[in-house]
């Protein structure tokens, strides 16, 4: 199950992000939460069977001002590495790729209303 929140804060682990994928670990009080990164600058935060997807600070900085976000509809089934939306800056559109396969269950509505 996937939840798409491309503008969520990513943790300080990202500041050392390189082109290859990194494993990020966060320790929470109750359980260990896993956050992983893809080569294409998406991250996924998995808790039990719910994954939250976002794009990294690095990607957001590279994009600059975000003017439009295209989000998949709730209920869409995505395959790993398939496109699931797009993020647009003033000058360019960039596809978002699903880090894992799953079904979209929730989308951050704010992305369409105020992409910036």
């Amino acid at each position: 199950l996937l939840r798409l929140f491309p503008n969520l804060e990513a943790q300080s682990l990202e500041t050392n992000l390189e082109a290859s994928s990194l494993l990020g670990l966060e320790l929470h009080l109750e359980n260990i939460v896993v956050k992983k990164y893809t080569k294409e600058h998406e991250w996924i935060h998995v808790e039990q069977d719910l994954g939250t997807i976002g794009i990294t600070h690095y990607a957001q900085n590279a994009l600059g001002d975000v003017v439009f976000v295209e989000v998949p509809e709730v209920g869409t089934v995505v395959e790993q590495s398939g496109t699931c939306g797009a993020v647009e800056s003033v000058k360019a559109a960039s596809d978002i790729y699903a880090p894992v396969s799953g079904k979209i269950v929730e989308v951050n509505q704010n992305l369409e209303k105020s992409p910036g």
Partner: protein
Amino acid sequence: MAFNVSLPMVTIKRNFAAVPEKLKQTPLYNLHNEKRGKMVPFAGWSMPVHYANQGILSEHLHTREYASLFDVSHMLQFRILGKDRIRFLESLVVADIEEMPFGASVLSVFTNENGGIIDDTVICKHADHLYVVSNAACADKDLDHIRTKIGEFQKKGGWVDLKVIDDRALLALQGPLAAEILKKLCDKDLSDFKFMTSRFIHFKTIESHVSRSGYTGEDGFEISVSASSSQRLAKLILGYPSVHLAGLGARDSLRLEAGLCLYGHDLDDSITPHLFDLKNPLGKRRRVEGGFLGADRILAQLKEGVTRRRVGLIVEGAPARENSEIYNSSDELVGKVTSGGPSPTLNKNIAMGYVKSGYHKNGTLLKVKVRNKLQDAKIVKMPFVPSKYHK
């Protein structure tokens, strides 16, 4: 995410081991770095696409409300000299230079034998020379073309020469506050300084050639100044807190709102002057006499009309970028977008493109294909944002 960038010759490389190209630097290169310009390769130059603490949207809006300073020193500046200079240049462009008064400028195009556009250009007529500015991306092409033609012209006994200006920076100060700021700097009244004219002005002992022109739709000035004084002049102008630096990203979004073409996108050598609808491209004398490259085809088109027209569109949904296809209400392909993106001023997505004649009227409802989805679009008159030239 794939970083698919539509800005020509810009690639955002995530692989830091890539070999950097040897890029030219303008006289303001150090200033850009000092002010945290995000430098990108553009037409062989290292240019700021925007500045770190600002961003394209803020630089764009700031220009429309206050004033912004752009470094456009990468553009080609040159002089045409010699007693036959006007006759010579008129053989290469469609403008009527002969009838221009001294100090006047004109936006025109260099054409080829087929009537296609080689580049767009601004020509300033001075008493003893013609001062010409053209696109950085076309610099080599333009110079080759002009030099070849000079050779032919001289063989026939004509007196003309070309001198590239490679020791001067070009700064563009654009926005409603531009005039007020320059007035303070040079301590002169500029109210009689009309749009598309130029004069020589001293700014605190820095001599410059100033043209009241620009490519943003705002009132503004393009200042040609010696490379050695350019940083000092830029800092003097930036000394006024209402002026911010702005980069090529904002320059592109501003000109799109102003309905102005970008060579290589909205103009290329398949487009003739009449097609892109340059206002008064051909004055009466030039229409009658011809005498420029491609005259036969261009004049024929004036009589017969054209099969496609340049139009402006407001697009619903995601921005429609260059090469997006345009369809009519019966889903037939009728045209293509040549420039498009968000309009920060209008808070809508705008696009410029060409459609089959018949579909070009204002208000025509069409569809644009973006990421395989058809989105509604409507033809509107350009400029999208009204211009504020000091006429």
